[in-house]
């Protein structure tokens, strides 16, 4: 079962990554990348790293993709979609929304009953990772805060408009 799921997720990931590279439209590329990141998150869950799976979904598929789409929308000044296509888009959006809602309800109802894939492996549980991050790997962990500050200041300075522009 795990192997079957692994190859399913792997096929999804590789297919959407290829689609992202080949697609001519940047917005489609970004959406392909969301699919790729989500399926990689599923893979991490299968590989007994639940914390990594959650971080992958939240940081990559959430934060970084919002950044990508923000930049694409800010600059990409193409024309909007036609009215004929828009009807299809709304129908598809409603359909996907209903599926997502059903999935969430299903997941919340069944959550306590489903055994976690990584639970039998005590070595890689979130508890163990948190303990190690704040004991053995404390210095690297603190140094990343300096990295984040540097990146934040760098991004602000780069994006800021210069005087007289």
């Amino acid at each position, binding site marked *: 079962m*795990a*192997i079957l799921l*692994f*190859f399913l997720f*792997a096929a999804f*990931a*590789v297919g959407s*990554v*290829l689609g*992202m*590279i080949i697609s001519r439209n*940047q917005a489609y*590329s*970004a959406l392909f*990348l969301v699919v*790729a*990141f989500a399926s*990689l998150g599923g*893979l*991490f869950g*299968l*590989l*007994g*790293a639940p*914390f*990594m799976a959650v*971080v*992958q979904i939240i*940081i*990559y598929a959430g*934060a*970084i993709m919002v*950044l*990508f789409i923000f*930049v*694409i929308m*800010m*600059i990409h000044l193409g024309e909007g979609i036609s009215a004929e296509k828009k009807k299809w888009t709304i129908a598809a959006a409603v359909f996907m929304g209903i599926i997502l809602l059903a999935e969430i309800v299903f997941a919340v109802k069944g959550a306590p009953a489903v055994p976690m894939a990584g639970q039998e*492996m005590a*070595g*890689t*549980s979130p508890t*163990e*990772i948190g303990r*190690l*991050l704040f004991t053995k*790997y404390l210095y*690297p962990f603190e140094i*990343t805060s300096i*990295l*984040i500050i*540097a*990146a*934040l200041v*760098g*991004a*602000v*300075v*780069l*994006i800021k408009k210069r005087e007289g522009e």
Partner: protein
Amino acid sequence: MIPINAVFGLGLLIFFIGLFGVLFRKNLVIMLMSLELLLNGVNVLLAGLSYHMRSPRGSIFAIFIIIMAVSEAAVGFGLVLSYFRQKKTYDMDEFNELKG
């Protein structure tokens, strides 16, 4: 038990597709996305090794890589935006003069 060879193959495949994207696409945004793919391919390798060796070290390393990827994306987009402000395009072919 998922075979370690399959995980390695997947990680390397994603890494090389990302490398292909960085080298052959001329769109700056696609290039940045492909850079994220490179890091993700390495993360798959680390998760696979962590799973195989039953050790949390791979996950911790991968978490640091993700933090680094976020910082890189923020700075990269700063660069892309300021490049776009000057050239009004994303194309790397226009990126051929040193004078600001």
